[in-house]
């Protein structure tokens, strides 16, 4: 997760945008008396780490950070396997893309069952489904057509596969449990 020597958060690319905490950082100070203690901002810092590429920005924790580390909230959000998990307002947003070997129809049917089960699980947790969506694309046929002037040779291969794009937006459930539910559905497809 650590992204050394880089600061990738979008607001670091824009000098005019300040940190959400609206405080200034002092880069000359160390952050922690006890580096093993968690930062009050809830983020994961290293004692020599720094949030920012420019000094005007700062973070709600009020600590300074060394420039060799990216701040937790500048990193990509939680990743569980190949799932990307982000948040907006109170929503948990999971997205994923997978290539699954196999025929389109049984995969489509298995996903339909899986998504229905996922919606039921959310309800059972007293959560709220925003939406649960997938897009499937069938792939797998390819051919080489060639000639040296004496007719056309055709070599066809068929390795059926499905490209799956998934978007899940859900409210008021445990994030890790939700991610595990999604992974269970996806992993059954292989």
């Amino acid at each position, binding site marked *: 997760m650590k992204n050394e020597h880089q600061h990738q958060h979008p607001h670091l690319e824009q000098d005019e945008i300040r940190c959400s905490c609206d405080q200034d950082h002092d880069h000359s100070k160390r952050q922690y008396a006890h580096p093993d203690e968690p930062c009050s901002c809830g983020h994961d810092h290293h004692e020599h780490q720094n949030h920012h590429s420019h000094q005007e920005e700062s973070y709600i924790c009020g600590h300074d950070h060394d420039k060799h580390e990216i701040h937790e909230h500048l990193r990509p959000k939680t990743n569980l396997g190949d799932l*990307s998990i*982000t948040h907006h*307002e109170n929503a948990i947003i999971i997205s*994923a893309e997978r290539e699954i070997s196999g025929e389109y129809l049984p995969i489509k049917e298995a996903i339909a069952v899986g998504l229905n089960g996922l919606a039921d699980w959310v309800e059972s947790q007293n959560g709220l489904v*925003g939406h649960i969506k997938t897009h499937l694309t069938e792939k797998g046929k390819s051919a080489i057509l060639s000639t040296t002037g004496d007719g056309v040779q055709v070599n066809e291969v068929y390795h059926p596969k499905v490209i799956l*794009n998934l*978007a899940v*937006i859900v409210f008021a459930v445990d994030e890790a449990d939700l991610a595990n539910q999604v992974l269970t559905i996806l992993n059954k497809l292989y």
Partner: protein
Amino acid sequence: MKVIVLGGFLGSGKTSVLLQLAEFLVARSLNNENTTPVVIVENEIGGSGVDNLLLENQGLTVKNLFAGCACCTSSVQLEDTVSYLKKEFDPQWLVIEATGLAYPDKIKQTIEDAFLVETEIITIIDAKRWFRLIAAMEPFVSGQLENASSVLINKVDTVDEQKVQSVIESIQTYNKKLPCYPISAIIKIPDDFWERLLDQRLIAL
């Protein structure tokens, strides 16, 4: 360029409505070789999209705006995107499909302030889930109605007429003059519906 913002909560049927609206606009647009009839901005809150894939497969011109909400975290990117599309395609119609977590009014404001173009909001709501959503997140869901030109009450095929009427009454408690139109986006929405809907808001179809 005229701009339509399609708003509404997650799962309300925005993409299904958009497919039909785009088809109508393409068919009705003037045969002008110098412009593209319709360009769609597809905003997804997550890191990858699903709806854009469906729209692109329909042959529509789609510009994706992912990993943020155009009404707030991605409003600057929205401006940049629209600026690019205006220059590159000069579309007759720009349709922005908001995320289900967006306040369409904020998108309208961003576009009007930046481009001084007429922008209308059509908010889609799910007749079946309306009261549940109102109970769970009333300020947010009702906020999606702000400054809407009209509301399409979708999925009326899943509820009875009495429920549709009670949904309309509920919506109009937030704005009693807000026009509400029951639809089912899984069946063909007639052209004359779109003509009437857009004619009353947007001049010179």
